[in-house]
């Protein structure tokens, strides 16, 4: 019996969401009295695999098959089902990122498992297996009960955190026996955003709304983000107006984020926007309207002109980082 944790890689490197999944899986295994096993698919070097030991997992299955680079959900689900059978997995944990979200439903069908996506926190109960998950896009929490013997969970980002717990690692190579027919996707081109903090990984996010008045005023947001090592985001009207790219839209229909610190500058806080950011640990709001709903979600706020406040934020942040 074991808890199997899938850790995805981007160009051979693991990311924070994966380390968080490992931390969670290790704690879950301790709770269930079983063993935590991590599994990696694709060309990941031994030095990178050994990093998983920092988060408490001592057994790592690795299939270094180059073909996994095409991020084919079908092939990955097949390989993970193979790994799950190999270690007798009762629970499989994946990060709730693009890849985890894509693979988990297919894997759940293969394992005849109930799936809880967007799980937050360890199970409240092991029997019946009950775990919290976000519903209505962060506007409520559901206590999900899984009725099947095998369970698949995807972990909501930044809901558990990364926990360091160094152990030594035993790496075991495995071959899931996939044929070329299992890899149906032909990648033509990959565009990577370089030199920017990814919204999905950012611990701090600085976002602007219509109150910023126009794209020409985004220099201050980018400057503050750069000083703080933060990602930049925007509200829906801003991306709809084309002031910023759609990739920056956070909210119900855009990206759902949960950083430690979120700056909402000139964002009124429509219910759809709040749904996308309510998982943030601390929210700072600046808005000229004292009745803006963002202040109900915010921990710290200034009722005032964002154009006057932002330069002071930048100055204070510079002093802090100096």
């Amino acid at each position, binding site marked *: 019996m074991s808890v199997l944790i899938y850790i995805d890689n981007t160009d051979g490197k693991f990311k924070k969401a994966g380390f968080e999944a490992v931390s969670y899986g290790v704690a879950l295994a301790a709770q269930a009295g079983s063993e935590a096993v991590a599994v990696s698919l694709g060309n990941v070097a031994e030095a990178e695999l050994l990093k998983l030991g920092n988060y408490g997992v001592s057994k790592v299955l690795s299939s270094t098959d180059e073909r996994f680079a095409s991020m084919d959900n079908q092939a990955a689900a097949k390989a993970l089902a193979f790994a799950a059978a190999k270690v007798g997995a009762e629970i499989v944990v994946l990060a709730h990122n693009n890849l985890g979200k894509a693979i988990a439903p297919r894997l759940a069908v293969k394992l005849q498992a109930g799936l809880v996506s967007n799980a937050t926190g360890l199970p409240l109960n092991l029997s019946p297996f009950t775990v919290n998950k976000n519903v209505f896009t962060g506007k409520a929490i*559901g206590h999900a009960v899984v009725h099947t013997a095998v369970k698949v969970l995807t972990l909501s980002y930044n809901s558990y955190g990364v926990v360091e717990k160094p152990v030594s690692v035993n790496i075991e190579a495995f071959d899931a026996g996939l044929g070329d027919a299992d890899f149906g996707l*032909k990648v033509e081109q*990959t565009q990577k955003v370089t030199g920017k903090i990814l919204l999905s990984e950012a611990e701090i996010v600085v976002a602007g709304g219509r109150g910023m008045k126009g794209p020409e005023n985004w220099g201050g947001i980018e400057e503050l983000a750069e000083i703080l090592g933060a990602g930049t985001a925007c509200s829906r009207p801003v991306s709809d107006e084309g002031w910023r790219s759609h990739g920056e839209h956070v909210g119900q229909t855009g990206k759902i984020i949960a950083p430690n610190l979120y700056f909402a500058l000139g964002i009124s806080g429509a219910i759809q926007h709040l749904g996308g950011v309510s998982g943030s640990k601390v929210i700072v709001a600046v808005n000229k309207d004292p009745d803006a709903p963002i202040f109900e979600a915010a921990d710290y706020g200034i009722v005032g002109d964002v154009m006057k406040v932002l330069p002071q934020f930048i100055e204070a942040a510079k002093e802090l980082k100096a």
Partner: protein
Amino acid sequence: MKILVLIGNVPDTTTKIKFNADKTAFDAAGVQWIINPWDELALTRAMELKEAPGSKVESVTVANVGRQETEATLRKALAIGADKAIRVDADARDAFYVASQLAKVCQGFDLIFAGVEASDYNGAAVGGMLAELLGMQSVSAVSGLQAEEGFVRITREIEGGSQTLTAATPLMAIVQKGIAKEPRIPAMRGIMMARSKPLEVLSPVDTETRVSFASFDLPPAKAACKKFSEEQAKELIHALRDEAKVL
């Protein structure tokens, strides 16, 4: 090419979420129902593909799992332009149940669109489960799709960027924002025509429920927002460091 778009019937995204007295079920009183936002974008893209010059798309069908009251949402999809609707007459219990119901509807389609998730229970699972049940290739996080002869060219989002790729049909495209620019709004003519378009009702197959909700909670109320004046902006930043300890 025949396209199927899976439609979720969800509360309007501005709905204030409430539960019944013992917090075991969503309180639907007074709720406006809409097409799940991503499904609406998927339908919009399906219509664009059908209407493109030289299009090979023969038809666009929409399908959902739901009781009779969800037909208004299907009629809206027909008003947007779908040719035909199929409803499996059952309560949408969990993602596996819904996918199992839709599996029999999916036969004979070349391209199936599913939204990345439904805005109610955020399961993010029906499209992927359905593809697995059908043994069909699926691509997730799809933000662009072009139909070619016998295959599709897709743009999908990956961690830290995007990717273009090709995949053979039949294919399940699990779509997100970007697949279409703006959702289409039904025109009066479309609404009139929708009344006479076919809406087929199928009875459900017997399937187990794998996941259920014991109860729900609203998030704990936040402490009141600590306000600073415009002139105290620097002090707010200091509070983030000294008090909230997030800087």
